């Protein structure tokens, strides 16, 4: 029998894998965006598990809005990425340091 805490532990594990991915792939902006997507998938699993076990549809509606915001975030993030590549010739995070004091 699968209970709520199984889903919570699963999403905690995947959340931390995504967190470690941000540390590991710190220099590649595309990998950072994909790790954020992984983290969002884990968090959405939490919401849906609570929605299922608590019999409340509000969690699923919240996931719906998270998906919308994440899609907008990816679109703008990739646009910024393309601009960075066009101006700098690289998507390395360390290259984009012109605001550094």
């Amino acid at each position: 029998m699968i209970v709520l805490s199984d889903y919570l532990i699963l999403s905690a594990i995947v959340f931390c894998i995504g967190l470690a991915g941000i540390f590991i792939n710190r220099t590649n902006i595309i990998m950072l965006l994909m790790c954020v997507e992984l983290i969002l998938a884990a968090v959405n699993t939490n919401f849906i598990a609570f929605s299922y076990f608590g019999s409340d549809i509000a969690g699923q509606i919240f996931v719906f809005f998270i998906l919308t915001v994440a899609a907008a975030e990816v679109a703008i993030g990739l646009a910024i990425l393309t601009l960075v590549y066009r101006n700098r010739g690289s998507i390395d995070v360390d290259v984009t340091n012109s605001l550094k004091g």
Partner: protein
Amino acid sequence: MEFTSILFYVFALYFIGSAVLMVTSRNTIKAAMFLILSFFSVASLWLLLEAEFLAITLILVYVGAVMVLFLFVIKMLDIDKSTVRAKFTKYLPLGIVVSVVVISQMVLVLSAGQFDLDNSMGPVRHAADFSNISQLANDLYTLYVYPFELAAVLLLTAIIAAITLVHRKEGRSKKQNIAEQISVQAADRVRLVSSSPSKSKESK
């Protein structure tokens, strides 16, 4: 063991395995493919949780649109793999330490039974003809109609922002030349022509 429990463990294994392979993959294309696999497995988990609409939406919107956009950008940009590879192992120990600490904290808290989550909450069994989509739509278009419209505005903003950012400026768009505007003389703009009305009638 129930069949749904076996399914949960299989999909959880796929989810964790593809997530690990994604974050450790040095090839960005392979990482995107593993992210697609993890989206499919998490959608299967959502189906087990009776969130059918969101599972299908995740496949259609995320795999069908967002990941294709990712792959498009990855193939369009020429990423220098050597610099990425050199810095790959630099932060690996820190990342592993932080994630192991966070995982152990969360597992300890969740499995200690402090919140009595597993006993206080249980799923409600629905009839076979129960529709998740109509339930979701009923709430979305009544209780949450203003957030829904705000989400639409947000998507419009995202469209405008993305197009404005990536749109190439040279040649295609009208742009101010400020030096030329400041240094303009009256003679450049106004031309005085002497003509009489009768002559212009004749010319017609």
